């Protein structure tokens, strides 16, 4: 083993003192700086450098607020969501709504499709919000996401229920994400392949769930169990991919409206005297994402206001 390789290996051992999140984000560049700062022919980290790395790394693990406080965890999760949420929604909408519809086009459905004005407007909003977050225009995206959510809630739209629930849930969390986090530019720094894999899996699972709900489920309990299984699998993959628990909670909140609708459906059969009214339904269906958005927003904003550089 050459001297440089031995030095790198020893520095890497010292970097193990840092939290995994920090190593993922800064490990390679910190190592590059350590190696650039080393003397020619140096084979071992100096005592002072080693002590500094151990102190900084352990300090980050032990000291509350040093690296990943709950507030920063929420802020980072919201920053990633602010970028990924609208793209995820758009991709899921395209696959769930447009591809099956496209299958009917050869059978003369084009005229009917073009007549779905509300659907096209809602889709236009989704494209616009996704484009704005990808361009890093946080405040424009916030205004557009608010307009898109308001349009969907007031226009009694059009898209299959599975997409309506998803869109409203995403817009609720997106508003919190854009208002309470540093926004999509910070999200770009934090997002990694794990987010892409998990969101792709989640989108695929929702599409499959929708298909099953349309054609296979006769009993709400069976649908509820399948939904629980889907969420458990996605949560497991998300954990294995290294996604923070805050981001996993945001994803779980998106599944809440489906679970709530199934429980209402099930309850209506057995103990509810009558189906809930439209406004009650909206409140029940979206209490989960709304509450999650509120908790995330409060936690992400409060510590940032308190933190000071001393």
């Amino acid at each position: 083993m050459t001297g440089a390789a031995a030095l790198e290996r020893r520095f890497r051992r010292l970097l193990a003192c840092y939290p995994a999140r920090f190593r993922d984000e800064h490990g390679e560049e910190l190592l590059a700086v350590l190696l650039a700062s080393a003397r020619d022919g140096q084979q071992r980290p100096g005592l002072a450098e080693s002590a500094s790395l151990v102190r900084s790394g352990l300090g980050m693990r032990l000291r509350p607020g040093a690296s990943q406080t709950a507030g920063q965890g929420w802020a980072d999760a919201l920053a990633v969501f602010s970028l990924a949420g609208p793209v995820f929604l758009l991709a899921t909408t395209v696959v769930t709504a447009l591809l099956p519809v496209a299958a009917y086009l050869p059978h003369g459905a084009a005229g009917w499709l073009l007549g779905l004005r509300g659907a096209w407007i809602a889709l236009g909003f989704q494209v616009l919000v996704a484009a704005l977050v990808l361009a890093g225009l946080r405040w424009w995206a916030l205004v557009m996401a608010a307009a898109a959510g308001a349009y969907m809630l007031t226009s009694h739209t059009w898209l299959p229920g599975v997409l309506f629930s998803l869109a409203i849930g995403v817009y609720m969390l997106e508003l919190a994400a854009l208002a309470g986090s540093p926004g999509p530019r910070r999200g770009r720094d934090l997002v990694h392949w794990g987010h892409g894999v998990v969101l792709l899996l989640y989108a695929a699972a929702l599409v499959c769930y929708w298909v099953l709900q349309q054609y296979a489920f006769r009993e709400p309990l069976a649908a509820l169990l399948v939904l629980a299984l889907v969420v458990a699998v996605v949560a497991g993959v998300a954990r294995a991919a290294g996604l923070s628990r805050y981001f996993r909670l945001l994803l779980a909140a998106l599944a809440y409206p489906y679970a709530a609708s199934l429980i209402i459906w099930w309850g209506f059969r057995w103990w509810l005297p009558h189906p809930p009214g439209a406004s009650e339904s909206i409140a029940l269906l979206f209490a989960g994402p709304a509450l999650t958005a509120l908790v995330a927003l409060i936690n992400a904003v409060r510590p940032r206001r308190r933190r000071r550089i001393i």
Partner: protein
Amino acid sequence: MQEATFLILTALAARSQHGYGIITDVLEISGGRVRLRAGTLYTALDRLRAEELIEVDREEVVETRLRRYYRLTPAGSTRLAAEAARLQANAAAALSRLRLAGGIA
């Protein structure tokens, strides 16, 4: 604001820099008095990013090593300017009192 933080922000005031560049610049700015350790620097950079005072400008790979350049955000520039003005006012006050006491010319 700690001196190291002030010097890091100062190093980034004119242009974006990577980690090693910041260390050498801080050494120069401080007249050789402050030699930042890499661990200390990256703890500070992580915190300053969370505070939205700095952001990543670009990334390069040089001889297979990742080199990430940082720059001040508008909030970072404002914060640095405010801190510099505060230090300048304190220094002016100190010098003025010393002159009154006949301590310095």
